[in-house]
């Protein structure tokens, strides 16, 4: 079991590296999908079936498709990214990434044991997660819902036509 887990983990890492080093955005998106899929397999190995399904539904099925949609709408990007060197956003994301990695490592060292069942097994079922969400974590859950609603309305307002603008029929 744990050999399999490490194999999937290695694949996941390789896909993550692929996201960063691919020259074409669509290839990056594909690697991102591979990364999400392998993560879902890891969740299944940890008996967190609900989390695995949510991972695929939300990330692979929703977000990556939206990313692809945007890439295709914007069209071809002729700029070759490999020649630009380290830009400011790249440096910022590197620093933040390292901070995240270190803090996660400090938190999780000694707690994570792959393939260890027991306490995790019941925690992965949909009913267990649902019960936790609607009892112990009700307040954060509702806050997240409100945050998403605000984001949705914000997107609506930003995308709305001004009343004076000529109305454009969506092309077939």
């Amino acid at each position, binding site marked *: 079991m744990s050999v399999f887990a490490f194999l999937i983990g290695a694949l996941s890492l390789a896909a993550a590296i692929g996201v960063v080093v691919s020259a074409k955005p669509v290839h990056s998106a594909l690697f991102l*999908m591979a990364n999400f899929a392998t993560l879902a397999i890891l969740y299944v190995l940890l008996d967190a079936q609900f989390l695995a399904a949510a991972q*695929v*539904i939300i990330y692979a099925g929703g977000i990556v498709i939206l990313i692809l949609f945007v*890439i295709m709408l914007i069209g071809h990007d002729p700029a070759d990214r490999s020649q630009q060197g380290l830009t400011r956003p790249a440096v910022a994301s590197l620093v933040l990434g390292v901070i995240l990695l270190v803090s996660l490592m400090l938190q999780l060292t000694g707690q994570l044991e792959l393939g260890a069942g027991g306490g995790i097994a019941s925690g992965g079922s*949909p009913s267990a997660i649902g019960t936790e969400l609607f009892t112990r974590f009700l307040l954060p859950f509702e806050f997240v819902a409100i945050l998403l609603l605000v984001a949705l309305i914000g997107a609506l307002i930003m995308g709305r036509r001004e009343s004076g603008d000529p109305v454009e029929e969506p092309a*077939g």
Partner: protein
Amino acid sequence: MPKLLVYLIQAVVLSLVVITGFAYLTWLERKLIARFQVRIGPNRAGPFGLLQPAADAVKAMFKEEYIPRHVDKFVYVLAPMLALAPALIVWAVIPIAKGVPAMGDVNIGFLWILAITGVESFGVILAGWSSNNNYSLLGALRSAAQMISYEIPLGLFLVSIAMLGGTFSLVELVETPRAPWEWIWIWIAFPFFFTSILAETNRSPFDLPETENELVAGFFTEYGGMKFSMFMMAEYINMITTSTVVSTLFFGGWQGPLADRYIWLGPVYLFIKVLALLFLFIWIRASISRPRFDQLMRFNWKFMIPAGLVYLTVSAVMTVFLK
């Protein structure tokens, strides 16, 4: 590991059955469409043209595997596989007889269906993009928009049914008896659900990603030979798969008279139900003309999604007070 071997054999047998189903579904569709149009349809190869699918398969396999020079090769070759695989994977959780799931019973059966249908659109989108052709790209964009949009009502109705059934497992759902009002309430959702499925599987009248009179052939314009056949396979196997899911959710799956006692009757009943739904698919294709794309979108966002939300709310209330 014998358990792994059993799974492997199950998977191979299941795939073969479904792929044979695909072959004869093309025959059925050509025959039925011909009948709807007062023609005879394929009748040369074998009695009633029954060997036509075999002839088509041989033809597709021996065609030249042609890759245009202007495509993104890796994605171009990957896309047909990504289109075909999810259609087969969904089968894993569908119960085919009393207590017998096709592959394994998981407690996330519903979510499995949602997850896999979400991934289905990748094949189409990537095919359109990698072809490097405006018509293909337009087809892919349409497909992406259509699939993202119609997934929402699909999910809303799925969640309602899961809520009423009180389980996420399809095996349990079929075996839990429903009260008469439940059956009626669930059948009210059937037309909505089926419409979303038509859009999700890119079937006529919602086959806008591949409209031949405006986009050549849409996302698979640049494909030929076996790779083209794989897209066809994906479409038809999707029809079979979704029909099976629908008959499992709405019509009791393998349930039927005496199916409890004689286990072998389960697959027979399931087959009959699936066949009836496939007939409905083909009937709709022969009868209804294609809407415009903006009409399709408006119908979804202004009618299907509100209807789904209302249905979900009422189902929740009913679950609390009547069950």
